């Protein structure tokens, strides 16, 4: 099995620095997701691992070997693209076998492997069709098949589901996960979709502004975001943020005392500016105006079937919360939000780093 290591990787387009100081250790068989907004360099990083992008500094090791300047075909990788990138003039069979033909694999062996992969991805009936005669989902299935047939140790996925509609996306997501369980290859998956990241990844690498912001299990990323960017980017709807000042171990937010001691490892000095983060599901909405908690006014209610999203206001501050559908509130109601203390996230107001 093949692991991938990146050592102090830097990439430039001319004078523009696209990535810098990227250090990443991907153990064999891990499913790792590079997550970040568009333009954060995650696709560039994937291209660099594939050998499709020149590296300005640092090293790429695949399976323990230095592959920094090795041709893509010799890196033992396979890649799936957002645009499918199927060869339009070749049949599905031609697409699946092209790489093997180039590698001069014997014909019976090619046939065997193509048949095997076609069966695995349920594209057998499509083998003699052209890509233009396939639906989007079928095309991506074939593209995945083209990667699988290479028998590579490392799979690279560049936003493979972004061009598909919601239903197909979740179907193929499950299929990719199943593929990983079956092949046990190392998989590096680029996406801007945090749901894909949460559901697929063994480990998520959140990227922004040319660097890695945080890496960890989906659980760590969600429950212990390293900074306000990660906290906001992962989770839907996004985490709520309240600005406050520390006083006597509590945070004073808009005149109210919030107990933050439970969320901190060590107490903070008075006067320090902080940002208090709380996820929508970590507060309880109390319809009783006299109850404990932050007094707010209901702005918008979004019924979502099993639950409701309630968007509240307190002056300039907006707060969203999840409530069970049984909670009956409507726009304009005065309610209270009870924040659970141990679920608060405290960030430094200046650096945005978790405290």
């Amino acid at each position, binding site marked *: 099995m093949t692991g991938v290591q990146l050592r102090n990787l830097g990439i430039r387009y001319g004078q523009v620095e696209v990535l810098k100081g990227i250090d990443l250790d991907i153990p064999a068989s891990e499913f790792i997701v590079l997550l970040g907004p568009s333009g954060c360099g995650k696709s560039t990083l994937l*291209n660099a691992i594939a050998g*499709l992008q020149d590296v300005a500094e640092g090293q790429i090791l695949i399976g323990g070997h230095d592959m920094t300047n090795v041709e893509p*075909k010799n890196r033992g990788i396979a*890649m799936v*693209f957002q645009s499918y990138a199927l060869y339009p003039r070749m049949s599905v069979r031609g697409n699946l076998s092209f790489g093997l033909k*180039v*590698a001069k694999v014997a014909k019976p062996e090619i046939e065997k492997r193509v048949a095997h992969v076609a069966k695995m991805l349920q594209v057998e009936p499509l083998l003699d069709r052209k890509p233009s005669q396939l639906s989007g989902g079928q095309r991506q299935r074939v593209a995945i098949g*083209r990667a699988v047939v*290479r028998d590579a140790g490392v799979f690279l996925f560049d936003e493979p589901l972004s061009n598909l509609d919601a239903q197909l996306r979740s179907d193929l997501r499950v299929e990719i996960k199943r593929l990983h369980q079956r092949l046990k290859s190392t998989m590096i998956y680029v996406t801007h979709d945090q749901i894909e990241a949460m559901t697929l990844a063994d480990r998520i690498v959140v990227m922004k502004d040319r660097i890695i912001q945080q890496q960890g299990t989906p659980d760590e990323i969600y429950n212990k975001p390293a900074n306000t960017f990660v906290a906001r980017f992962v989770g839907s709807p996004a985490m709520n943020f309240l600005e406050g000042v520390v006083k006597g171990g509590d945070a004073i937010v808009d005149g109210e005392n919030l107990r933050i001691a439970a969320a901190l490892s060590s107490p903070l000095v008075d006067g320090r500016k902080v940002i208090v983060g709380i996820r929508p599901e970590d507060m309880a909405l109390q319809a009783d105006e006299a109850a404990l908690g932050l007094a707010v006014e209901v702005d918008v209610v979004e019924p979502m079937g099993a639950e409701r999203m309630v968007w509240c206001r307190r002056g300039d501050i907006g707060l969203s919360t999840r409530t069970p559908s049984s909670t009956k509130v409507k726009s304009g109601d005065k309610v209270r939000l009870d924040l659970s203390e141990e679920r608060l996230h405290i960030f430094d107001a200046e650096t945005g780093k978790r405290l």
Partner: protein
Amino acid sequence: MTITNSQAPVRRNAYAAPFSRALVYALLIVLAIVALIPLYVMIVTAFKSMEEIRSGTLLSLPHAFSFEHWWKAWNSACTGLRCEGLKVGFVNSFLITIPSVALAIAAGAVTGYALSFWRVRFANVLFTVLLIGGFFPYQVLIYPLVRITSTIGLFNSLAGVIAVHVVFALPVVTLLFRNYFASIPIDLFKAARVDGAGYWRFFFSILLPMSVPMIAVAGILQVTFIWNDYIVGLVFGGINYAPMTVQLNNIVHSTYGEREYNVEMAATLLTSVIPLLVYFTSGRWFVRGVASGAVKG
């Protein structure tokens, strides 16, 4: 709301439509007649006897259709000292056009490919130079090219004519292919690189099969351009490889005694058969070629 809004102007236009449409058609018909009259005159004249040409009106149909002049133009009209008709030029034109077009397309496609998919050093500079080359009036370059071809021993030879044609065609053809390749998603190239395809493998196995429309367009443009060329063939071909256009000119301009209008018309029509065939059979492709960034043609 949207539906009523979008229908209203259509209905208002329905009044004006028959009038303006009739006007457009009338104009088109008149212009078509103006454009077609010379062709008509050429065709009928080619079938008339000299007596009829001298006596009859220009536009009347011939009394008796005669293919005699066509045969003469093809087989025995005098093109300078030789009197073997246009057939020699016809063969020469084929000998010039086919290799020129094939080489121009091959060179243009490969150059366009290198410029669009591979990070060639100074690609933009190269491309700009090519573009400027495309805008240069080629008459200016005739004399330098005569010196060059005679120095390397290609002057007055088939290879010389072909080489000059390829050089002149390169900017346009390269531009056509580069622009076409620029529209092909880069992911396709990346996928092929991961699959192990190198420079030529990607070009021949993936890019070329996708480029059939562009090859057709470039082919049509260059066939008509090179077939219709006069000056390159005249200057570089010498006597042995004078193309049809040069021989036609010799027939038309160097007759002694009475001018045989019918033979001249027949010769002209014979010379334009190939480009006309190309236009008629491939009008759609041709328009696309002209529209997709050809700078001359």
